[in-house]
C-alpha cells in the first residue's frame, strides 16, 4: 500500500499551514456546507466560467467542480517553489532563444539535434529572429506535484498558452465572498495582482518601433473556443481589447485593429490561438482564425506576438527530460525543481524496461494532453495494459513512461464529509522585463477516491490555493 503525503494531517497532528482551517472544517455543519456549495456553483454559473481547461476537451458547458477546501502553502514552502519555477522559466526561454539562434546547447552535445530540429513544434520560420528582450515564452505554466513535505516534481512545462489562470482568480474571488471571516483570520497573500502583472509583462515586450504606451490585444479563436471565457475575462481585467483575426489587418509593416474610430496600430498581441493558425500565408493556408501577413510583420519587428510562435519546442514531452540540463547549461546553476524520471520508449533499453513494468508505470503519448491516451498502470485492468502494450510496440516513438508518483493529498469535501484527495499545482510565471509570479496558482484535485488523474475531463475539480503571509 503506497503511503501518500497528506498536506494537512501528519498522523493525528494538523500541519502548521492548515492550522487556520481545522476549526473552520470542524465547525461547519453539513447543511451549511451543502448551502455554501450550492452558492458557489450558482456564482460560477452566473459569471459563466464553464470552460474546460484548454486542450482537455469535454463538455464546454459543464461546470468544473469547485472544492471549497483551500490548499495551503507556508511562505517558506512557497519561496522555495517560486525560486525553482522562476529558474525553470528562465532556462526554458534561454533554450528557445538559443535553438532559434546558434543552437549552442546542441553544438555542445548536451541535447540531441534531432530532438530539437525535427520536432514538430520547431518553427523554421522564426529561426534567426530575436524577439524583444529575447523572450519567447511570456507566460510559463509549470505543472507540479508533491510527494512529501519537501519533495516537488515538475510534471510538465507549458510554454505556449497555458490556460486556467481565470480559475485561480475566480476561485479566490468566490472564497472571499463566501467565507470572508477566513480571510480575516488568516493572512493570505493576494493573487488579484495577476492581471496588472500580465499587462506589465506584455507592455514590456513591445517592439522597439513602438514609441508610445503600447496597445495590447488578446487574440482569441472566438466564442466557440472552450477557453473563450478566460480570454474575455483577462481582456476585461487588463483593460485591453479582445479581438478575433477578422478584426485585424496588416499594412505598411504594422498590424492594425479595426475600431469605430478607424484603424489603431497594435503593438503586442497576446494570442490564444495555436501557431498553425496565426497566419495563413505562413502556416496553415486554410486557417480562417489568423491574420494574413502577420508573421512578416512580426519578423520585421512591427508587432510582438506572445507567446512567440515556435515556443512549443521547449515544452514537448521529449524535450522535458533535458530541462534540468538547460538550467545547468544556460544558468550555470543546479536545478531547484526536479523532473520526474522518464523513460523514452524510442530508446530500445527504455522500451524494454517499460514493457516489462507496465503495471507500475504511467505511460503517456508524447504529444498528448488532458489525460487522454494515458495509462495509469496500477489503476489499469489487465486488459487495458495489454491494449497499451500493443499500441506502444506499434509506435514506440510516440510514448514516454514515468513511475507512478505518490501524489500528495489535501482534505476535500466529499459526499460523506471531508476526505483526502490527490492534487497538483499549476503556477503561472510571467516573463518580461521582470520574471514574476503571483503567490498562488491553480490547484487541481482528483475528486474520485484513489484517482491520480486531476484533469477536468477525467473527473477533476479545482481549489483555491493559499500562500500564507509571513
Amino acid at each position, binding site marked *: 500500500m503506497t503511503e501518500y503525503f497528506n498536506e494537512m494531517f501528519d498522523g493525528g497532528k494538523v500541519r502548521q499551514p492548515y492550522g487556520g482551517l481545522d476549526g473552520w472544517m470542524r465547525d461547519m455543519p453539513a447543511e451549511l456546507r451543502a448551502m455554501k456549495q450550492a452558492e458557489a456553483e450558482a456564482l460560477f454559473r452566473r459569471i459563466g466560467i464553464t470552460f474546460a481547461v484548454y486542450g482537455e476537451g469535454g463538455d464546454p458547458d459543464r461546470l468544473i467542480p469547485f472544492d471549497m477546501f483551500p490548499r495551503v502553502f507556508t511562505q517558506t514552502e512557497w519561496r522555495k517553489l517560486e525560486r525553482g519555477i522562476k529558474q525553470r522559466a528562465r532556462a526554458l526561454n534561454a533554450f528557445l532563444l538559443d535553438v*532559434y*539562434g*546558434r*543552437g549552442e546547447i*546542441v553544438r555542445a552535445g548536451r541535447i540531441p*539535434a*534531432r530532438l*530539437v*530540429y*525535427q520536432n*514538430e513544434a*520547431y518553427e*523554421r*520560420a*522564426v*529561426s*534567426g*529572429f530575436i524577439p524583444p528582450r529575447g523572450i519567447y515564452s511570456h507566460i510559463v505554466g509549470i505543472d507540479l506535484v508533491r510527494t512529501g513535505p519537501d519533495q516537488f516534481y515538475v510534471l510538465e512545462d507549458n510554454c505556449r498558452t497555458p490556460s486556467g489562470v481565470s480559475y485561480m482568480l475566480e476561485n479566490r474571488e468566490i472564497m472571499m465572498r463566501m467565507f470572508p471571516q477566513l480571510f480575516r483570520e488568516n493572512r493570505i497573500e493576494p493573487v488579484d495582482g495577476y492581471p496588472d502583472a500580465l499587462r506589465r509583462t506584455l507592455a514590456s515586450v513591445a517592439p522597439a518601433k513602438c514609441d508610445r504606451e503600447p496597445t495590447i490585444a488578446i487574440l482569441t479563436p472566438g466564442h466557440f473556443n472552450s477557453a473563450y471565457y478566460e480570454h474575455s475575462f483577462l481582456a476585461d481585467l487588463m483593460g485591453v481589447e479582445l479581438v478575433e483575426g477578422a478584426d485585424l*489587418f*496588416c*499594412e*505598411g*509593416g*504594422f498590424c492594425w485593429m479595426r475600431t469605430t474610430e478607424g484603424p489603431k496600430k497594435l503593438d503586442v498581441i497576446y494570442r490564444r490561438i495555436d501557431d498553425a493558425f496565426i497566419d*495563413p*500565408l*505562413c502556416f496553415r*493556408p486554410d486557417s480562417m482564425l489568423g491574420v*494574413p*501577413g502577420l*508573421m*512578416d*510583420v512580426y*519578423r*520585421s*519587428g*512591427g508587432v510582438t506576438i506572445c507567446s512567440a510562435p515556435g515556443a512549443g519546442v521547449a515544452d514537448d514531452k521529449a524535450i522535458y527530460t533535458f530541462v534540468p540540463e538547460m538550467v545547468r547549461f544556460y544558468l550555470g546553476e543546479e536545478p531547484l525543481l526536479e523532473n520526474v524520471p522518464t523513460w523514452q520508449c524510442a530508446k530500445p533499453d527504455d522500451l524494454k524496461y517499460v514493457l516489462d513494468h507496465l503495471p507500475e508505470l504511467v505511460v503517456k503519448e508524447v504529444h498528448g494532453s488532458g489525460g487522454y491516451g494515458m495509462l495509469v498502470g496500477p489503476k489499469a485492468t489487465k486488459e487495458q495494459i495489454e491494449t497499451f502494450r500493443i499500441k506502444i510496440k506499434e509506435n514506440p516513438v510516440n510514448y514516454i513512461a514515468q513511475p507512478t508518483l505518490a501524489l500528495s493529498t489535501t482534505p476535500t469535501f466529499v459526499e460523506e464529509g471531508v476526505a483526502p484527495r490527490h492534487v497538483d499545482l499549476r503556477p503561472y510565471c510571467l516573463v518580461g522585463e521582470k520574471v514574476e509570479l503571483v503567490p498562488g496558482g491553480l490547484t487541481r484535485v482528483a475528486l474520485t477516491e484513489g484517482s491520480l488523474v486531476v484533469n477536468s475531463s477525467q473527473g477533476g475539480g479545482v481549489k483555491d490555493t493559499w500562500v500564507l503571509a509571513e
Partner: protein
Amino acid sequence: MILTVNHVTTYDYDAPMGTAVQSLRLFPSRFDGQRTIDWSVAVEGGVKGGSFRDGAGDRVEGWSIRPPVEAVTITVTGQVETFDTSGVLRGHRELVHPMAYLRETVATWIDDALQELGESAIEGASDMLDRAHRLSAAVAEAIAYKPGVTHTHTTAAEALAQGEGVCQDHAHALVAAARAVDMPARYVSGYLFATEDGAPHEAAHAWAEIWVEGIGWIGFDPANECCPDERYIRLGSGLDAREAAPIRGITQGAGEERLDVTVALEQLQQ
C-alpha cells in the same frame, strides 16, 4: 555571366476583391555564385510592408493592396552577375540547422516507392557527395520531363508513380528521396537562363539542395541533370514548393483568379 531578369506576375479577378496580402521571396540570394547589380520588386497599387532576412538567408518582403482589388501585378526587374560554383552554395549566410530539413511535408511525403528509390540510388556510393549525385540521377531517370501532366498540388509520390512531370516534381522527388536516406534536403526556387541550344525548360525554375556533411548545401537540378551553374539565379528555399514559393498571397473574396506569368531572362553581351 550577367543576366537580366524581367518577371511579371498578374492575378486577374473577374469580380472586385477585398484586401490582397503578399509575402514575397523574390530577391537573389547572397552567396559566391551571384552578385546583384540592380534589383527591384514592385506591386502595382500596393503598400510595402516589413522586410527581413530569415534564418535560411532569404530576404522576405510583405505587401498589401487595399480593396477593391481587381488585379495584382508584381513586377521584378534586375541584373545579376553569376558565377559557376559547381552547385555549391558557398558564402551563403544562414542559421537554420540542416537537420530541420529532414522533416516531411504533404508535398514531399515519403511513400514506399520514394523510400525504395532513395535506398537503391545510394547503393555502392563511395561517399556522401556521390550519394547526392546518384540520388539526383535516379530522380532524373525515374521522372521524364513532360509539361501539363502534373499541377501545383501534385506530390512527389504522385509524380514518381506517374513517371512524368516538370521541375517542381523533380525537385520534390529529389528532396523526398534524399530525406528518405537521412540526407537533409530542401526545395529551391529561382530562374534559369536557357541558351538556344539548351533544353527548353521554364525560365522560372526550381531545383533541390542536399546537405553534404563537410561541404555544405549543394544544388542539384534533376530536370536538367546537372548542378546549378552560372545560368541559374537562386531566390529562396523551403521544405517544399509552397514554403519556397517566390510569391505567396491571399486575396479576400470569392472571385475567380486568372494567373498570367511572363519571365524573360537575357544574357547581357559584354
